[in-house]
């Protein structure tokens, strides 16, 4: 693989940024580390979400399903297998699930995909509880010595992987195919691109990443129960943060995740009784004032600056 000097710049910058992010636990063990875990978690989820949904324009609400499955893999496996192997297993299961979902639904139009993925978390939750019920399974406890800092580092590592994957896809034939699909699916099909296959392959990325994230966070939950592991809110938050950032660029979601997490934090801290109301309102503000996310805003500013420089 040949890398241009611009590529080297990008890689160096990304490595430095990730290394800086990884230092957070040395600076604080308290409040800001907890916020850091939240930001890292949503960065991973939103970026992988945008990898798929950005080029294909399919809105996936399946994040909670993958996340919950990952948490359950750790919940069931923690007493039998080493923790690290569970992360791998979770990733594989997540990818296979995503492939199956993709096979059944990615030929359908966008709306059906939205509803299907929204229902997926609910469906898996029902099946898991039914199996638990049938086997008389008791509550699942994940008692480990994993600390908040460990969780944070794992998430930063996963984020590095996600960015690397995204970057490689962007340079690969798959990325090229996806850009054409995103512009016009008909054209893509006529020029011999197997659109369904490309989409399914791509959907496996958020599937695997979502499940691994769930697995990483399971020790933080201590007690795994379906209602908490499969909360549909998670899927929506990921979508909102990614769209707030903008899905056109690999780094787009992260510029949505950070301000949104801080905004959310400020709202929950200052107005604990009106959290829902104010979140809804900030949602509306985002949709009406930032239709293309922060990326769009930044591009506009750049374009304007460029015009002024020319004039």
């Amino acid at each position: 693989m040949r890398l241009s000097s611009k590529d080297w710049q990008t890689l160096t910058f990304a490595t430095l940024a990730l290394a800086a992010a990884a230092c957070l636990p040395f600076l604080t063990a308290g409040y800001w580390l907890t916020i850091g875990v939240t930001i890292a978690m949503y960065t991973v989820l939103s970026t992988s979400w945008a990898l798929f949904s950005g080029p294909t324009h399919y809105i996936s609400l399946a994040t909670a399903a993958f996340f919950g499955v990952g948490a359950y893999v750790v919940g069931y496996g923690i007493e039998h297998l080493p923790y690290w192997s569970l992360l791998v297993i979770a990733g594989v299961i997540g990818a296979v699930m995503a492939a199956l979902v993709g096979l059944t639904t990615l030929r359908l139009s966008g709306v059906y995909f939205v509803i299907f993925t929204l229902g997926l978390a609910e469906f898996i939750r029902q099946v898991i509880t039914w199996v638990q019920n049938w086997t008389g399974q008791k509550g699942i406890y994940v008692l480990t010595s994993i600390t908040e800092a460990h969780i944070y580092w794992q998430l930063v590592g996963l984020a590095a992987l996600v960015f690397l994957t995204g970057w490689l896809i962007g340079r690969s034939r798959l990325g090229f195919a996806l850009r054409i699909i995103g512009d016009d699916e008909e054209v893509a099909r006529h020029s011999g691109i197997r659109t369904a296959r490309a989409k399914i392959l791509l959907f496996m990325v958020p599937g695997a990443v979502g499940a691994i994230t769930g697995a990483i966070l399971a020790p933080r939950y201590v007690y795994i129960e379906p209602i908490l592991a499969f909360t549909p809110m998670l899927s929506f938050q990921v979508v909102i943060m990614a769209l707030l950032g903008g899905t056109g660029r690999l780094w787009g979601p992260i510029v949505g995740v950070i301000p949104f997490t801080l905004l959310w934090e400020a709202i929950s801290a200052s107005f604990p009784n009106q959290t829902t109301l104010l979140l809804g309102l900030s949602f509306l503000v985002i949709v009406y004032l930032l239709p293309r996310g922060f990326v769009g805003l930044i591009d506009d500013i750049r374009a304007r600056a460029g015009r002024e420089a020319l004039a």
Partner: protein
Amino acid sequence: MMKRRTFTTLAAIAVAAAVALPAAAQETLKVGAVAPKTGPLAGGATVTYWPNVQLWVHDVNARGGLDVGGTKYMLEVVEYDDQTNPGQTIQAVQRLVNQDGAQIVLPPYSTGLNLAAAPIYNRFGLPMVTSTATTDKAGELSQQFPNVFFTLGGAQGIVGGVVEAFTALRDRGDIGNKLAMVNVADAFGIELMGQAKPAFEAAGFELVYESSYPLGSQDLSPVMKAAKAAAPDAFIAWSYPPDTFALTEQAIVEDLQVGAFFTAVATAFPGYVGRFGAQAEGVLGIGGVYADGAAFQEYAARHEQVTGAKPDFWASAMVYSSFQVLEQSIEAVGSFDNAAIIQHIKDNAFETVIGTLDFDENNNNTSFWTVGQWQGGVFKGVASTGREGAVEVLPKAGWN
């Protein structure tokens, strides 16, 4: 940033100030509380948890504040909504301790959220006297988190109480031994069902119908029809609030004729008798209190007066009692030394609205109410693991 005082605290402070304590001698103390105000568990927390935070702070401030080593502190609540999301619970506890400087952090709400928050309470060394977590793993958990205490009991104790009540009814000849039992397919229902099946079989009952239904089922009439078709003498449901209401209504509609009818969470809610009125008479449910005891009656009256709502007849009083344990320990220790407070909780017994409360070597309260029954519009405890004040269990008459 906004001042985070709740209106109640302001009101309480205003009242206390008006009563003429010199303002200069007043110290305020921040008390943190985090529990669901939105999300799937908000309904339960609104009945059981939040009013007690309000009431407890009101009570402490009304008697002049919390006395810590000779200084009187007025309490000021900082409340956060965790949206029924464990991540948010953890974040809010961090915020309370690091950003808000809360000296006292009350325990969260529900089994899942309490356990998710246990590591963070442990890291801060905060005493955590849980009041809404049910677990049979108290031993293991208290080893990992020695700062955590359990008061509400576990599945084993509750099932034991239900078996005891049903056996009493059968031995008196009020019911036969044919039993229909259903559960909500969620951690809570599954665990209790798993315990209850062998326990009832060992007690000589015959299970003529058993089934489960998913959380969030909108129609439970097929369940009740099938249960009725099995012609049971007694009915048990390990249920959550919406299905407790739905199953009772279906039992009325189907006119299920049983001598004992038991539903779980929410049977003890005032809203239950509010909805079913006289038809609730004789219904058995999880929990219970010494409803005729002076301590509870006084508590219930204050609860209604201060918060405008009635307490439930199970966890409400337990939530308040766990706050009292914390209150009494801090005053007895005379400082905010959390390690000493935790040791004090381990070593002592506390007089609370549910009676004397103390903990075994696993930080577990072993005497709690297990079964209650609506009798004359009041949900009275009929079985417990060592609480006084249980009344005789009565057979269920017809619905209409």
